[in-house]
């Protein structure tokens, strides 16, 4: 696998290979790059930030409570797209639990004062 290290502005081009169960990184110039490369190869994770629809109009910004497996990101986005918020929430509130079965929740990153539109 090839990727770019994001640990610093150097942006080293990393090549990551697995032989006999041992993951090795080349192209890095420091130990942080090696750790990053191994993580990206074995278990890459991403924070997901997106929007949930609010019933009657508007959007609520949310984030995952912790980084989730990269392979689950698109499923998490699909779940977010299927939800419609119809209540007031405070920043930090859990709005969707166990997103994409990742163990992480979507939490609101802003306050939402919900008023039912007639």
């Amino acid at each position, binding site marked *: 696998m090839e*990727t*770019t*290290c*994001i640990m*610093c*502005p*150097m*942006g080293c081009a990393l090549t990551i290979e697995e032989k006999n169960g041992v993951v090795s990184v080349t192209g890095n*110039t420091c130990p942080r790059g090696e750790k990053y490369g191994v993580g990206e190869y074995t278990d890459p994770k*991403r*924070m997901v*930030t*997106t*929007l949930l*629809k*609010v019933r009657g*109009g*508007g*959007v609520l*910004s949310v*984030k995952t409570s912790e980084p989730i497996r*990269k392979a689950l*990101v698109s499923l998490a*986005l699909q779940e977010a*797209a299927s939800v419609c918020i119809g209540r007031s929430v405070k*920043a930090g509130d859990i709005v969707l639990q166990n997103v994409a079965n990742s163990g992480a929740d979507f939490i609101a*990153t*802003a306050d939402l004062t919900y008023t039912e539109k007639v």
Partner: protein
Amino acid sequence: MRKFDVVIIGGGPAGMAAAIGAREQGASVAILERDVRLGGILNQCIHNGFGLHYFGEELTGPEYAERFRKKVLSDEGITVYLEAMVLSLTEDRVLTAVSPTQGLIEISAGSIVLAMGCRERSAGAIGLVGTRPAGIYTAGMAQRLSNVNGFLVGKEVVILGSGDIGLIMARRMTSEGAKVKLVMELMPFSSGLKRNIVQCLNDYDIPLRYSTTVTRVTGKERLTGVYVAPVDEKLQPILEKEEYIPCDTLLLSVGLIPENDLIAGSNIEMSRVTSGAVVDEYRQTTVPGIFSAGNVLHVHDLVDNVSEEAFIAGRSAAQFVAGNLPEKACVSVTVGRGVRYALPQRIHLGEGNVRLYFRVDQVYRSMTVTVRSGNDLLKKKKTMVLAPGEMQYVEIDKCLVSGDLCVALEE
């Protein structure tokens, strides 16, 4: 006419930090903000990555803004005017503003902090050739429509410019179901952060072409496509290699301009490089009592640096009112090889450390940053890599300074 010690124009990250800085000196403070709430651009930046330096944790834009907003709104010494657009300010520091709720507002200020932020370069600013259909947006406008108003601006997207907002919007629009066909960058390198290239483009297999630009756009009511072509060393498009890409949306992420219209024609000396004011280490402009901080002073890549800079400006603005700021700065900070600009552009002789922030003009590897005063080498700092998109600083001890300074790169 109401009077305040420190009046801050703009209630984004810079304005809020300046208010807190001024309050810590005991000044009475007013913030004039033209939007309906404090927070500025942070309110629409729903992605995370803010605050790693300032708070030691990764926050989203709304969360970063909220930390400052809470502090500002709970302080009775800070008066916040919302939906208040400042129309003019005079050199004796009288401001005129209008708001739908209060009508004409006149305020007399002991000192002023300019914190108006920046705006995006538009299709007109880059002389985009072709028709003028719907579907051409600056990246930040599309971001606001998406993240604040809840509208997806298009379904088949091409992005010109690889600035951070463009990269972030590539991911955002993909997340919302749009197809981002191409991101192109006129220069042979990106001005965006590495992290954004990896996590916003590579993660979603969105192609990024360097040294490429839009040559013209087509479409009558709505954009139907763009012609793109690679450019030569002089950044001129090679038309023989022009290629057509059908799309309904073109996002522009082609640079930011400090929004200094309010002080155009004033006696405040401006920098032609930053398009912001020339300031000293207190972030005071060349007109006494007028300070500047944040993206209106020079465009930043990290909000953490904005907060830090604006805190200095706010604190200094309060010290000016109390009569505690030294007279005119006397040492100039100039730049040499490889450095586009350094800020502050002037400093005072005296004690204490001062950070000189600077940007390089291209990507450099294994260079040494030097600060010289005449023949004296005051500071040198080895670096692995320097990129135009990442602001740097060197800290110097003012005791060592005897004359004008020069920040430069050496082998």
